[in-house]
C-alpha cells in the first residue's frame, strides 16, 4: 500500500481525511516507472463536489486506457488542510500515487463554473507550480484547461499553457502523441506548445495578443506565431455511439454530492433557449443508442455497487427512446433495492406513470422550469413552455396524488418588467387554485409550491451575450417585487419563495464575459484571501470590491453595457459551429418576442451542421 502524502497527525486533524487518501474502488493504480506520461486531472473544488462530476471520470477512463499514460486526480484541499499545507509547505499531491503534482507531465483543470477561478490559483500555489504560463520551466507540468468555461477562457489565459475547446474524447490522443513525440525529439516546452497549436481545438494563449480601443473594448486579437490558427474550432464527436464511456467509474468512500451511477443519454439540446450557454455550445444534439445505454446501465451498476442511477442530459424528455430506456431500467432495478433518480421530465401520462413507479408521491415533487413568469417573457427567452402546459401537467399530477410543485425562474432577463415578475407569483397562485379545486375529501392536506429564482447572467455564445446586467440593488429589488406579490396572493400560505444572492451574480457576470485584463483581479482577490467563492458562506464580496478598486477593474464596463453589433468579443476567436450572425438574429428575435422552433421541428441554420452528425442529420 502507498505511503500517504500527509502524516497521521495531519489527517487526524482535518475534517473528512478520506478526501485525501485515494484508494477508492475503481481508482487506477499503475507502476510509475513504466509510464511515459503522468497526467493529473483536477477539479478545483472540494473532493465531494469534484467526485460528482462525470466529465472527469470520462477523461480519466480514456487516459488510463492508454498503457503509456497514468491519469490521477487532485481536488482543492478544504480550508483546514489548505492552511496546514501552506504552513508546512506540503506540495499538493495526486490521490492515486500521493506524489506531488508539480512532477507530472500534465495538469488538466476542469473549468465548470466561473466562481472556481480563485481555486485554480490555490491549486497552482499549493502545487508549487508557477502561476503564469510564461514563468513555467521545463520541469513544470503543462497546465491545460477544459470544460464549459473555456468558451471564454480569457480571464484565465495567463495561467494556462493550453485550453482544450470542445469534447475531450476527440483530440486527447493527438495531444498525448504530440507530447511524446516532443519528448523523443528533445523539444523544449515552447517547441511543444508551438506544436500543440497545430492540433485542432487547442488554444495556446501565449501565442495570441489582445489590443484594446480607448473605450476599453477589444480592438484586435491575433496570433503572434505565424502558424497558430486565427480561430479555434470546437471539437465534437459526431456520433456518440462511438464515444467511450467509463463503465467502471470511481466510487468514493465518503458520500459525494452525486452518489450514484450517472448515465449520459445525450449531449446538446434541441430547444435553443436564448439564455442557455450549454444549449448553444454543445450543439448539435446527439443521443446514444438506447441498446448501448441499457447495457452501460447494467455494467455500471454492477461495477460500482451504487444504489441509485440517474440519467444525464440537458433535456431528457427530448431523448427519443426515453420511455423504452426508463421502463427497461425499472425492470433491471426491480427487487435489487436500486433507485432510479428521474431527471426533470415534461409532465404527461408517461412521466406520471414512471414517477408513480419509482418515487414516493408524498415525498417527491413535480419540477417545472418556466424561467419567466409571463408568456411574453417566455417567448423572449424562447422557452416553449406555456401556462396551459404547466396547469394541465399539475392538474394531472394533483389528481394522481402529488402535492408538491417546484418552479424555477430567472430574474433580470432582457426586457423584463415588474409585470413579468409579478406573473411569477400569479402562476404559483393558479397552480394552488388548481389544487384547491379538488374536493376537500379527495385532497391530501395542503399543497406546497416552491418558487426559486436565480438572477440571469449573460454568457458568451448565447443570443443574450449582448445583454446588459443590473446592479446588485436592482436584483434585490426584483426579488422583493416577487416576494411582495407572493404575499398578496390568496393562497400565499401554500407558496414558498427562495431567491439567490445578488453579489455572486454580478461577479460571475464579470468573469463570464471578462477579458485578459480580468486576470489581475482574480489574483488580487485570491491574495486577499478569496477562495471557494462558490460556497456562499466563504464568499467575501467586500474583498472582491477592494480588489476591483486596486486593479482598476470596472465592474460596470463588463456587466452594465449593452454591447453593439459590431463589438468584437474576447471569445470571438473560438468557433463553436454556431455562427455569430445566428446568435445576433436570435437576439433580434428576442427583442421582437418571436419564437424560434426547436431543431426537430425545423432547422434554423445555426451552423452546427458543420459537425456532420446528430439531430441535423436525423431525417
Amino acid at each position: 500500500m502507498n505511503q500517504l502524502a500527509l502524516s497521521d497527525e495531519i489527517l487526524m486533524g482535518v475534517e473528512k481525511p478520506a478526501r485525501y487518501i485515494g484508494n477508492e474502488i475503481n481508482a487506477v493504480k499503475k507502476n510509475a516507472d513504466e509510464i511515459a506520461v503522468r497526467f493529473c486531472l483536477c477539479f478545483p473544488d472540494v473532493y465531494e463536489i469534484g467526485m460528482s462530476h462525470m466529465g472527469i471520470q470520462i477523461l480519466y477512463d480514456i487516459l488510463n486506457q492508454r498503457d503509456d499514460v497514468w491519469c490521477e486526480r487532485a481536488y482543492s484541499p478544504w480550508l483546514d488542510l489548505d492552511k496546514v499545507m501552506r504552513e508546512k509547505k506540503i506540495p499538493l499531491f495526486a490521490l492515486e500515487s500521493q506524489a506531488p503534482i508539480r512532477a507530472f507531465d500534465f495538469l488538466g483543470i476542469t473549468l465548470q463554473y466561473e466562481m472556481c477561478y480563485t481555486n485554480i490559483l490555490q491549486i497552482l500555489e499549493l502545487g508549487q507550480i508557477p502561476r503564469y504560463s510564461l514563468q513555467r520551466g521545463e520541469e513544470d507540468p503543462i497546465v491545460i484547461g477544459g470544460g464549459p468555461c473555456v468558451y471564454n477562457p480569457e480571464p484565465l489565459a495567463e495561467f494556462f499553457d493550453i485550453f482544450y475547446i470542445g469534447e475531450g474524447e476527440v483530440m486527447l490522443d493527438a495531444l498525448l502523441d504530440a507530447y511524446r513525440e516532443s519528448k523523443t525529439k528533445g523539444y523544449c516546452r515552447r517547441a511543444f506548445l508551438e506544436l500543440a497549436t497545430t492540433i485542432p481545438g487547442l488554444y495556446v494563449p501565449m501565442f495570441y495578443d489582445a489590443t484594446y480601443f480607448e473605450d476599453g473594448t477589444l480592438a484586435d486579437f491575433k496570433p503572434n506565431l505565424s502558424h497558430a490558427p486565427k480561430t479555434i474550432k470546437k471539437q465534437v464527436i459526431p456520433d456518440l455511439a462511438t464515444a467511450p464511456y467509463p463503465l467502471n467509474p470511481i466510487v468514493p468512500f465518503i458520500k459525494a454530492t452525486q452518489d450514484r451511477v450517472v448515465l449520459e443519454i445525450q449531449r446538446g439540446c434541441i430547444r435553443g433557449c436564448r439564455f442557455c450557454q450549454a444549449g448553444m455550445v454543445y450543439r448539435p444534439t446527439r443521443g446514444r443508442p438506447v441498446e448501448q445505454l441499457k447495457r452501460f446501465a447494467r455494467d455500471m451498476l454492477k461495477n460500482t455497487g451504487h444504489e441509485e442511477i440517474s440519467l444525464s442530459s440537458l433535456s431528457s424528455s427530448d431523448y427519443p427512446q426515453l420511455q423504452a430506456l426508463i421502463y427497461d431500467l425499472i425492470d433491471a432495478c426491480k427487487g435489487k433495492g436500486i433507485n432510479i433518480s428521474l431527471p426533470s421530465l415534461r409532465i404527461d401520462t408517461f412521466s406520471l406513470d414512471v414517477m408513480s413507479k419509482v418515487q414516493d408521491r408524498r415525498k417527491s415533487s413535480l419540477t417545472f422550469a418556466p424561467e419567466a413568469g409571463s408568456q411574453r417573457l417566455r417567448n423572449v427567452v424562447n422557452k416553449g413552455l406555456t401556462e396551459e402546459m404547466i396547469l394541465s401537467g399539475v392538474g394531472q399530477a394533483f389528481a394522481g396524488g402529488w402535492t408538491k410543485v417546484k418552479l424555477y425562474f430567472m430574474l433580470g432577463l432582457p426586457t423584463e418588467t415588474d409585470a413579468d415578475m409579478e406573473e411569477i407569483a400569479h402562476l404559483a397562485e393558479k397552480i394552488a387554485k388548481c389544487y384547491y379545486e379538488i374536493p376537500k375529501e379527495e385532497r391530501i392536506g395542503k399543497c406546497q409550491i416552491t418558487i426559486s429564482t436565480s438572477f440571469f447572467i449573460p454568457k458568451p455564445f448565447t443570443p443574450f451575450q449582448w445583454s446588459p446586467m443590473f446592479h446588485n440593488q436592482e436584483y434585490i429589488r426584483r426579488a422583493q417585487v416577487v416576494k411582495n406579490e407572493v404575499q398578496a396572493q390568496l393562497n400565499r400560505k401554500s407558496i414558498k419563495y427562495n431567491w439567490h444572492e445578488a453579489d455572486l451574480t454580478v461577479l460571475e457576470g464579470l468573469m463570464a464575459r471578462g477579458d485578459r485584463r480580468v486576470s489581475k483581479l482574480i489574483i488580487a482577490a485570491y491574495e486577499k484571501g478569496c477562495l471557494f467563492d462558490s460556497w456562499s458562506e466563504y464568499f467575501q464580496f467586500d474583498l472582491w470590491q477592494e480588489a476591483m478598486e486596486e486593479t482598476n477593474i470596472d465592474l460596470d464596463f463588463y456587466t452594465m453595457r449593452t454591447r453593439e453589433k459590431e463589438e468584437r468579443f474576447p471569445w470571438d476567436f473560438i468557433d463553436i459551429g454556431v455562427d455569430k450572425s445566428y446568435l445576433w438574429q436570435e437576439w433580434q428575435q428576442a427583442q421582437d418576442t418571436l419564437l424560434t422552433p426547436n431543431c426537430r421541428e425545423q432547422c434554423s441554420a445555426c451552423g452546427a451542421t458543420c459537425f456532420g452528425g446528430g439531430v441535423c442529420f436525423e431525417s
Partner: protein
Amino acid sequence: MKVRVKFKKEGSMRFIGHLDVMRFFQKMMRRADIPIAFSSGFSPHMIMSFASPLGIGLTSAGEYFDIEITEPIPSQKALQQMNDTTVDGIAIVSFIEISPEKKWTGMSILAGASYRVTILAKEDTWEMDISSMLAAFLAQPEIVVLKKTKRSEEMVNIKSSIYEIKQGMDSNSSQLVLDMTLSAGSRENLKPHLVAEAFLTFIDKKASNFFYHRTEMYANVGSDDAKELVSLESLGREII
C-alpha cells in the same frame, strides 16, 4: 439465513469512518453478487448490522457485521467474490452461517474486544520493568479516568472493564506494545486510549505517538463472574 462476515481494516483505510465503511459494504454486496436480504417498505434497505463501530484512525484485524441472505452461498465462493471487489486495506476474512436468533447477533452478544496499542516514546525510552508496572497498575483499588462524550465529561472507574493487559512481543526500547482485552458492547464499552493514557500517567511517562489496532471481538459464553470469551467468528459454521 444469517451470516457473519469478518473483515480486516488496515493501512490508509483507518481514515474511513464507520458510516462510510457501512456504505462501502452495502455497495460491495452488489458488486460481489451476495444474495443479501432487504427490509420491506417503500425504501428497502439491506439487512446488515455491525458489531461495533471502529473509530477513525484505528486499524483492525477483527471487524464484524451480520447480514441476512435470501439463499445459501458457499463461504469460499462468497469470500472470493467479495475479495475480488474490495480495495487495498479491506480484506474479508470469513463468511459464516450463524444462529438465526436475534439474541445471537454480533451487536447483542459483543462482550469484549482486544487491542494492540503501540506507544512510541517521547524523549526517554521504555527501558523499565513494564510487566511489574502493569501488575501494580492493575492492583490499584480503582482506576479513575476522565471520560469525555459529546455531551458530558465524567470521572469513571474503568478497573472492572479491563479484562487483561500484558506487554506485547514487539516491545523494544523505542516502542511499548500493550496487548489488552477490554469490555465492549452496549453495556460497557471501554476505549483503548483511556487505558493507555491512564497507564502512562501511572508510570509518569510521555508518548510521542499512539497506534491502536483492534485484534478481535468476543462474546461471553460464561457468566458475568466467570467470563469465558470466545471470538465472534467461532460462533458460526462454514457454508459448504
